[in-house]
């Protein structure tokens, strides 16, 4: 009798704890419910609003716009960073409370679409033609999986190459005729590299902007030879061009730039004069609070061209969770995010470009010479193109194995063959 009473108390206690843990997390579906009557919490994961007062203020404007349509719904933001995006998404799925709206980057869409974590935006009328007419057409492969669209571009994260005019003149090079092919860049970089009496590099000739990861530089340099990393999710780098590119990176590291070099601010080294030439982001601050006008005047921007003129363009891409119980509200939230004024504000906050059709005439493009340059270069956009569905795994494989090849620990040809074999 006593034993059964004790057991009953134990079961009741465990039940109470279990119900308390699960209580109130799962909302009722609002899909099909008129927006004005929909209630619940829209959980959004965004790396697009920095953790500053300005970032929070801009996000509040998005919520205010969304609330005009969905007045009774609450928005719960998670301001992640690109470094912890996967952890946030995976733990939310494991916990059974997946996000309703997720903003990710190039390379994320295919794996999450393959796992059916992202919803097909075709259900909301988003097609390649819609993106082509309203957004950056070059990002269509990045948001597509098996001919369907799983994300909508918010921002374009474009990269250019910059040189220091003074360094070029000092080395007897013409800054108005910058080297654009890999071979030309190497010759110029070697001339621009400065060393101390012991042979240590004191100024890099070229900043590959990889520090310890050569994945994105490899994608960029390879694309400049007219070779996309993947075509229709099939590897396209285990070939002569891929090997040439990897060997070129290998020949640059510890020759014109020391392996692992980066400054404390993790800013492009060409801005600080630690490199004479190198890859830079998509915006520059020429005010006295930023780099200053003198430094800006000493910079000249250009694009890689080893057979094809290119500009690496990543992006912030908004998706709806396939397990969301608020898909319609989620799409309405994406519509609020894509208001031109919102995209302009986000572009400024993130030093990127708004991913709308006429980005070259955006306030961001007009605000500084680098943004103007990269906005004009959007027709030359390249990126990983159409990575395979195991890209999240491949990112690490590329990071570690390319480094091993560059540092001479593994044979570059074998590394590329291995990476091609691992892509599936």
């Amino acid at each position: 009798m006593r034993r059964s009473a004790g057991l009953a108390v134990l079961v009741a206690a465990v039940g109470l704890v279990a119900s308390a843990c699960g209580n109130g997390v799962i909302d009722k579906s609002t899909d099909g419910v008129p927006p004005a009557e929909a209630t619940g919490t829209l959980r959004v994961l965004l790396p697009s609003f920095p953790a500053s007062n300005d970032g929070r203020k801009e996000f509040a404007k998005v919520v205010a716009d969304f609330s005009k349509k969905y007045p009774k719904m609450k928005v719960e933001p998670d301001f992640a960073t690109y470094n912890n995006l996967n952890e946030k998404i995976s733990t939310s799925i494991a916990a059974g409370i997946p996000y309703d709206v997720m903003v990710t980057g190039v390379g994320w869409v295919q794996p999450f679409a393959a796992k059916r974590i992202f919803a097909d935006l075709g259900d909301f009328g988003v097609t390649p033609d819609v993106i082509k007419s309203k957004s950056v057409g070059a990002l269509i492969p990045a948001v597509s999986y098996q001919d369907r669209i799983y994300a909508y571009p918010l921002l374009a994260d474009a990269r250019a190459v910059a040189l220091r005019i003074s360094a070029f003149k000092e080395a007897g090079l013409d800054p108005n005729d910058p080297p654009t092919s890999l071979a030309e860049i190497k010759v110029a970089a070697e001339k621009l590299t400065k060393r101390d009496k012991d042979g240590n590099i004191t100024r890099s000739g070229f900043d590959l902007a990889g520090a310890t990861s050569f994945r994105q530089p490899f994608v960029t340099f390879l694309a400049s030879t007219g070779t996309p990393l993947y075509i229709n999710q099939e590897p396209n780098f285990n070939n002569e061009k891929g090997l040439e590119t990897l060997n070129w990176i290998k020949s640059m590291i510890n020759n014109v730039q020391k392996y692992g070099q980066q400054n404390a601010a993790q800013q492009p080294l060409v801005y600080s004069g630690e490199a004479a030439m190198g890859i830079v982001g998509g915006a520059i601050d020429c005010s006295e609070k930023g780099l200053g006008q003198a430094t800006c005047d000493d910079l000249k921007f250009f694009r890689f061209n080893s057979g094809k003129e290119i500009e690496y363009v990543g992006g912030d891409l908004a998706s709806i969770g396939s397990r969301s119980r608020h898909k319609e509200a989620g799409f309405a939230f994406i519509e609020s995010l894509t208001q031109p004024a919102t995209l302009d504000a986000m572009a400024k906050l993130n030093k990127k470009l708004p991913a709308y059709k006429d980005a070259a005439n955006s306030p961001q493009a007009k605000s500084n010479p680098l943004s103007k340059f990269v906005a004009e270069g959007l027709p030359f956009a390249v990126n990983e193109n159409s990575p395979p569905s195991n890209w999240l795994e491949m990112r690490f494989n590329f990071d570690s194995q390319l480094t091993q090849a560059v540092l001479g620990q593994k044979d570059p040809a074998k590394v590329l063959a291995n990476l091609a074999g691992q892509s599936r």
Partner: protein
Amino acid sequence: MSATLERPSPTLAGPRTVAPGKDSRRLIRSQLRAGWVLIAPALLHSGIFIVIPVVFAIALSFTDYSFGDSWAWVGFQNYSDLFNDADFRAALWNTILYAVVVIPISMAISLFIALGLNQKIRGLAFFRTAFYIPTVTATVAVATIWLWIYNPGSGLANGFLSLFGFAPNSWLSDPGTALPSLMVVGIWQGLGTKIIIYLAALQGVSRDLLESASLDGAGRWQKFANVTWPALGPVQFFVLITSIVGTFQVFDLVYVMTKGGPGTETTVLVLDIYQNAFQALRLGYASAETVIMMILIAVFIGLGRLLQRADVND
């Protein structure tokens, strides 16, 4: 003869005896019940937070679960894939190397320092506190400080070595020095706990035996080897086991300082598990890795027990 050598009388020191019958059975039942009630919270905790996750991890290791909608049983596929995975092999090797280097060195240094702190020296309280501070400091903070120490441009390590004419080194980005640099931090950070444990054990070493050894003419080394060292046996085993578990689970230090690079030079098992599970979203694969790590820790603990037994038999 001394009375302490005589076997104590069972009627004085043995358990309380109760006459057989109903009362004794009731007493035993009540003691049993009290025992179960007392260990129930610990059992519940272990069941929920240890047994269930372990069972789930083992089950997941036989699936291809990757946070998606569908999953399938894959048998031993994850295990066979793991042994063909160069990153896993590198992580396994680095972890074993890290453990094999860090554990004995940190134990030896800790014991040496504890012996010093067990003497009547000035500033004893300060030294004890100073040696324990790294243990209570958050690893992320510790790692950040060491990142500065190892900074190739303005770090303390290169600054100090330059006084002796050494060229600056990129400690954490040079494949040859990255893992040893982490080992140094691991050794330094683990000293505090070990020192405290050794110190407590040293204070429990019989003064009578030490005095007897002195009277018999034993020197410092002989006293250490024949009295102190055998007395530390159980503590050595405890320190060894906790060190094995601790070094096999090293993660935060590596995550903050190198992220496993350059290449896979400092990738350790827990970092690889973390990356596979939460960044590459391969939970089934990461679970297989976890199971292998559990087995590995068990093997190392078993080896530790064997060594301990051999030491006692000697």
